[in-house]
C-alpha cells in the first residue's frame, strides 16, 4: 500500500511538473492581463562596466505594447527615462532636456552594460531555442514560495549573457527577482521586483515628455 502511495505521488508529481518555458509562458500571460507597474531594485552594470545600485520604475500597458522605465538610481541616470512603443523607442535625457527617438527595429536599449529590454519579455526568454533551461526548483524567496529557473545561453556572445536566473512567485505567477550573468559569473543585472500592482494606466500617460524638451529624431 505504501509503495502504491509513492507511485501515485510520483505520477501526480510528473503530471503537475511544469517546465521553465511553461512557467515563463504562464508568468508572461499574467503580465499581459492588464496595465501594471513595479519597482525593480538591485544592481545593474553601468556604462563603464562597473556594478551600480539600481532603482527602476517600470510601467507597462501590454495591450498597447508600451513600456516605460524611469531611472531613480544609479545617480548618473537619475531622472532619465525610456519609453518603448511598438514602432519607436524614446530616450529622455534629463540633464540636456532632450528626447532621442529611434525606430524600434533600429533601437537597442544600449549604453548600459546590460540590455534592459530583456527584463520584460519573459515569453521571449521562454520561447528562445538558444536558451537551455534546467528543471524549475521549488524554493523560498523573502518568505514567499517560488520557482527558481536557471537558463543557460547556447551562444552567450549572441545572447548578451551566459546565464539567467529567475524567481517566480508560485501562487501569483509573477516575477520576484531576475538576475543575468556574463562571463566568469559577472553580474550584469540583479533586480528584485517590488510593489507590483495592476493599474488603470493609459498609454498616453507613459508616452509623455516635458513639452520644452528638444527632439532628436533618428532614422
Amino acid at each position, binding site marked *: 500500500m505504501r509503495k502504491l502511495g509513492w507511485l501515485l505521488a510520483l505520477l501526480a508529481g510528473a503530471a503537475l511538473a511544469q517546465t521553465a518555458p511553461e512557467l515563463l509562458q504562464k508568468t508572461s500571460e499574467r503580465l499581459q492581463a492588464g496595465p501594471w507597474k513595479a519597482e525593480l531594485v538591485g544592481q545593474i552594470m553601468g556604462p563603464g562596466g562597473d556594478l551600480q545600485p539600481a532603482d527602476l520604475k517600470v510601467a507597462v500597458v501590454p495591450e498597447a505594447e508600451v513600456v516605460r522605465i524611469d531611472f531613480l538610481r544609479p545617480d548618473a541616470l537619475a531622472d532619465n527615462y*525610456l519609453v518603448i512603443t511598438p514602432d519607436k523607442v524614446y*530616450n529622455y*535625457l534629463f540633464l540636456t532636456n532632450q528626447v*532621442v527617438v529611434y525606430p524600434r527595429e533600429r533601437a537597442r536599449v544600449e*549604453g548600459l552594460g546590460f540590455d*534592459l529590454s530583456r527584463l520584460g519579455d519573459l515569453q521571449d526568454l521562454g520561447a528562445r531555442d538558444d536558451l537551455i533551461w534546467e528543471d524549475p526548483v521549488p524554493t523560498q524567496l523573502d518568505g514567499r514560495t517560488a520557482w527558481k529557473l536557471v537558463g543557460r545561453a547556447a551562444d552567450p556572445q549572441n545572447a548578451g549573457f551566459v546565464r539567467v536566473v529567475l524567481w517566480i512567485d508560485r501562487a501569483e505567477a509573477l516575477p520576484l527577482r531576475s538576475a543575468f550573468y556574463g562571463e566568469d559569473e559577472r553580474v550584469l543585472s540583479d533586480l528584485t521586483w517590488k510593489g507590483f500592482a495592476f493599474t488603470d494606466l493609459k498609454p498616453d500617460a507613459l508616452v509623455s515628455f516635458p513639452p520644452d524638451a528638444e527632439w532628436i529624431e*533618428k532614422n
Partner: protein
Amino acid sequence: MKKLSLLILLAAAPLAMAQSLEFGLWAGGPNLSVGPTVNLRYPAGDWTLDAWLRAYMPNTDEISFGLGARRAFEAGPAGRGEAGFKAFIGMDAHYWVEAYGSAVLGKGALEASLGHTYNRTPSHFWPLQGETLGTYGRLAGKYRLTRELTLQSNLYLYEGGGQAEASLSWRAGQQTFTLGAGGVDRASNAYAILGYKTPYERAVVAATLRLGAFNDLRLDYADRTYKAHLTLAYPTRAQVGVAWDRWAVDAEVDDRGYEFYLRYTLPLEGL
C-alpha cells in the same frame, strides 16, 4: 527639352535624398531687404548632412551658401554625443566656419564650439544666427551635484573680449530656481543671473533675468503644440518667437534695425 529634364532631375536628386526641407522668408532693415532661405537636411543613421542657401535682395553680395555635417554617438539612457562642422561662404567672399561638439554622459554635459568669421557685409550668414566676427570659442558645461542641484557654466571668448557665467540650479519638486553671476569683458562688468522654471497646467514656463553690466529678461513657454519665447534686453533689443507644428516665426528689433523670419519645414520622408 531633354537637357532641361536632365537639369531638373539633377536639381531634384538632393531633394529625393533629403528627409526634410525648410523654407524660410527673411525680411530685415533699417532699409527693407528680403530673402528666401532653404535648409535641406539629410539624416542617415548617426550622420546628418545639411545644406543651406540664403538669397538676399536687393544686395546680392550678401547671398550665402553653407554645408554642414555632424555625427551623433548614442549611448542610450547613459547619454549621447555629437560632433560636427559647418561652413558658409558668401558672394562677397565672406565666410564662416565652425566646428562643434557636445557630450552628455551620466552626471555631466559639455558643449564646445570653435569658429572663425570673415564678413564685410552687414548681414549674417543665416537669420538669427548672429555669428561673431573673427575667431571665437564657446564652452558650456553642466554637472549634477545631486538630484536637486546642478552646476552650470558658460565661457564665450572672442577677439577683444569675452563673457563668463556660472550658476547653480536647485530643483524643488517640479520647480527649478537658478542663481548665478556673470561678467562681460572684465570682472568689474558683472551681472547677476536669476532663473525660475515651473510646469503650469500642461505647459512649462521659464524666466531668466540677467541684471547688471548685461541686462536681459527671457521668458519661455512650451506646451505640446506651441513653443514661444520673448527676450527684452537693455541696451534696447527685443526678440519674440513662436513655433507650432511645422511653422516657426521670429521677430527682432534693436537700435540697428529689425528682422523678421518665417519658416516652414516640409518633411520629405516617404515622398
